[in-house]
């Protein structure tokens, strides 16, 4: 019995140890990325996200937009995303990071739903192009979120970020959504609005990350 316990414990320890150490191929010395590298990567990813969203939006832009007709809000409208420089700078790094994570988290479900509704509609109007883009977008956002988390961890390690735990935010978008996707019936009009919101939010994320980068690592690039 004790031997079994002992075995289980060692296995656990080993697994934990293995997990903690970075795994590199061929036992070579791992290149641990610096914070600058992580920032670079994250900003690249956010640029990509924004370009995909712009492409998607451009495809649907021909449809009439509800925002012109009446009141229409993005489902992320109540996430306190600073809308000008002063506000953005007045937020600390931690809050800004939180905002980023919240924004990214809020888009997970809507994107999946968007992809599904696009796929349903693709026989009618468009090919699988848009739905694939939506799927790709969903993946990119997930990756970006993970990257931002890593970045936050690193910042915390370096002491740049304060010790407040930056926990992954719950998907708030589901709570505050007013988008049509929640209703389940999605039309191209709804798509258009959604994509408009997505394009905007991705630009916000990109901008906030840039602010974070320049405030954390001032260099030749900023």
């Amino acid at each position: 019995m004790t031997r079994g316990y002992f075995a289980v414990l060692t296995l656990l320890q080993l697994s934990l140890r293995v997990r903690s150490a970075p795994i590199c191929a061929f036992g070579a010395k791992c290149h641990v990325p610096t914070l600058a590298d992580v920032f670079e990567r994250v900003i690249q990813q956010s640029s990509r996200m924004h370009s995909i969203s712009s492409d998607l939006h451009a495809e649907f832009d021909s449809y009439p937009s509800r925002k012109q007709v009446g009141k229409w809000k993005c489902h992320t409208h109540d996430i306190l995303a600073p809308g000008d420089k002063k506000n953005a700078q007045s937020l600390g790094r931690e809050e800004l990071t939180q905002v980023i994570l919240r924004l990214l988290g809020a888009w997970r479900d809507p994107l999946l739903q968007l992809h599904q509704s696009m796929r349903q509609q693709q026989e009618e109007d468009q090919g699988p192009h848009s739905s694939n883009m939506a799927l790709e977008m969903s993946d990119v956002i997930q990756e970006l979120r993970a990257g931002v988390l890593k970045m936050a961890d690193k910042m915390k390690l370096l002491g740049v970020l304060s010790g407040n735990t930056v926990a992954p935010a719950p998907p708030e978008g589901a709570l505050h959504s007013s988008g049509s996707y929640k209703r389940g019936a999605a039309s191209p009009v709804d798509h258009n609005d959604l994509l408009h919101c997505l394009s905007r939010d991705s630009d916000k994320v990109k901008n906030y990350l840039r602010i974070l980068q320049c405030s954390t690592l001032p260099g030749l690039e900023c």
Partner: protein
Amino acid sequence: MRNILEWTCLLLLLATLRANSHSPPEKPTLTSCRSPEKETFTCWWQPGSDGGLPTTYALYYRKENTDAVYECPDYFTAGENSCFFNKNDTSIWVNYNITVVATNRLGSTFSDPVDIDVVYIVQPNSPENVSLTVMEDKGWPFLRVAWEPPPKADTRSGWITLVYEIRIRLEGENEWVIHVAGQQKLFNIFSLRSGGSYLVQVRCKPDHGFWSEWSSASHIRFPDYFHREKSTWIVVTVFCAFMVLSVTWLLRMNGHSLKHYLLPPVPGPKIKGFNQQLLKNGKSEDVFSALVMSDFPPMSSSNYEDLLVEYLEVYVPDEQEVKSKELHGGCFKLESSTSDSDSGRGSCDSHTLLMDKCGPSNGNGDHPMGTEDQVGGRDWDDGLDAKEDMSGLDVGRVKTWPSVFSPLPTSASSLLNQQISRELTKHHCLSDSMFCTQGVLGPEFSLCSAQLAMPQLIESRSDFNIHKLSAEKDRVQAVTEDTSAILQTFVPQERDYSKVRRVGSGNMLLLQRVSERGPDACEEKSNSAGTNVKTPSVCLHSAMQGQKDTVLATSGYVDTAAMVPMPTY
């Protein structure tokens, strides 16, 4: 009274007319809205016609998803017909719905609403402080362009991200070269012309927005690094000069041989006795008569020493005529030196061939010698002895004739190749009718060959002891070393010679009787001994027609002895 009434009517009419030309203002148009730094923005509009009345313009905007309508906070900062939104009034990522209203006394007109998002209307100012410096990289100069972002754009905090572009051109040219610099604030330009005068401009653009205006042109004059190029040219020039000099010198030294190598001289006609001058002079008779060689056929003995081949006369000691030999018959072998390294022997002279020929006809196993000739018989006994003795002889070679002197029966199958050693050719006796060589095979050994009217080509290639040429007579005269027996059929008046067709292998001397034989017999005898001289063998198998007459070349007899200088070995 009426005049006054008329005048008032007219005035009233004018007044009403004037009043009717007024109209509400025309619809104004929002031309553009721009933000220089993503923190403020300005909108401009274009007024329509004012309808003749003083018209005021007002700009109203509504923010996204709100009902409140606001009026432009600042009409003056940005100039006429503009509205300036300061930082407090500007929200990014928010849709603005902007409308301009033109109002006059008669009414107001709304312009078409415009939706803008400040993020998408950013157009920064031009970059400033463009500095140009010439720097050196391992001795090669390049241009470093440095600048600063427009002052209002806050790139330092990361609020706005700009990318830059540079363009450069030579003064006096029209084409600009554009370099994309990305987000960096300095850029190096290489490969510029030395001593060139350049103009440089920079501009920038945010992520999504518009390009700024080009900065004011900065001027720079690139330095002359001509001296560096000059040194290269000097080196190149010196090298070329050196090459030219060396080639010239080589040509001078070896010009002649080089000329021969490149342009080999064309061999001109070399006909003996041919005189070009005569030809030029024009008399063909003279020319052709000159061609006729006076000394042809050569009679004098002056050149005998030059003759390559010496004729050996084989004299049969007794009166018997030497029979000519059958081609297929026996063979008269004369011993020759044992070694025959001559490889140039023709098939006619093949050793084995001749052996085959001579073998069966030879009664004597040891001495495969025999002939049906009359040379045989008693004479042949002597000849046998002679053969034996001659077997020990190393000499007895008939020198080879140069092929140039072989106007011979073109069959040229086999050749009597003999090589007379130097010792053998010590004595030459050449006469009009006969020439013979007396060699030291043994001192007694002398072979004289008959002289023919026509020189005959014999090319000896191996150690043939005897080379027999006989045009008319069948005579074999052989003198061996030991014996003084001379196989000779000697007719004092005339000499009978047997025509030795060939000296084939196995020391077979093939003789042919001239008188009887047609031109067909041709025998071979090859030299079993080796010789160093390689000469082709020519088969003399043309018939001998005349007796003492001049034997035509076709007969196979060529008095080459007279013509050919005997090579001295």
